[in-house]
């Protein structure tokens, strides 16, 4: 688009951070998803970001894919659980809640930073429109 490069680049960043938020949300919501030991555990989702190289100044970022965490998860001894095997074990996903919460803050702040860039760029362009207005 040319004139609105800063805005569309920041927009691509917002899309990536929104995807990251979605992934964290999914990971946190499945934190206690228990499965029997003969099935793979819920696999954590990790967003893979990739820079878009288009021209010298770049063209933002995109989601290259979603990587998945360990399918082995961690075995927890819960004999009372109806899903437990004959030894009393169930499979929990291998997701660290504190790490997810930290990433949640990073994703939120990243999204907000890009939103600030959009606003600042718009203000900047509007300053250009004021040139010669009071002549």
């Amino acid at each position, binding site marked *: *688009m040319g004139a*609105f490069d800063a805005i569309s680049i920041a927009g691509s960043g917002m899309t990536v951070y929104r995807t990251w938020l979605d992934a964290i949300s999914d990971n946190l919501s499945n934190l206690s998803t228990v499965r029997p030991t003969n099935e793979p555990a819920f696999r954590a989702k990790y967003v893979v970001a990739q820079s878009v190289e288009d021209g010298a100044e770049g063209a933002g970022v995109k989601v290259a894919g979603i990587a998945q965490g360990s399918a082995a998860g961690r075995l927890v001894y819960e004999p009372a659980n109806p899903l437990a095997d004959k030894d009393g074990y169930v499979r929990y996903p291998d997701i660290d809640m504190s790490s997810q919460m930290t990433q949640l803050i990073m994703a939120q702040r990243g999204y907000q930073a890009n939103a600030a860039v959009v606003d600042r760029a718009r203000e900047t362009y509007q300053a250009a429109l004021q040139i*010669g207005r009071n002549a």
Partner: protein
Amino acid sequence: MSISAVSGIAPAGYLDALTGTAGTAGASAVTAPTQGAGFGTTLAGSVDQLQALQATSDTLAVKAVTGNLDDIHDYTIAASQASVAIELTAALRNKAVEAFSEIMRMQA
């Protein structure tokens, strides 16, 4: 929001009028205006781009109300791009009309 009324000035009728005044001035020293991309063409191009931006914004607005919008920021960004672009086009048009009026007021 329809902006088709703005495209009415695209044929650059006033530009032709401007180049016409050079001849009537009778000054032989005045060189013939070079036929580059005229202001009218430039303005028409920017009006076309403006229409494209408005169309994007409108499409996203429909997506927003029908619940098919993936990213909220896609719509707000498209809307603010369209708004800045329309301000720019309006500023250009106003300046052109102002310049034309200034020339029309010229007296010997």
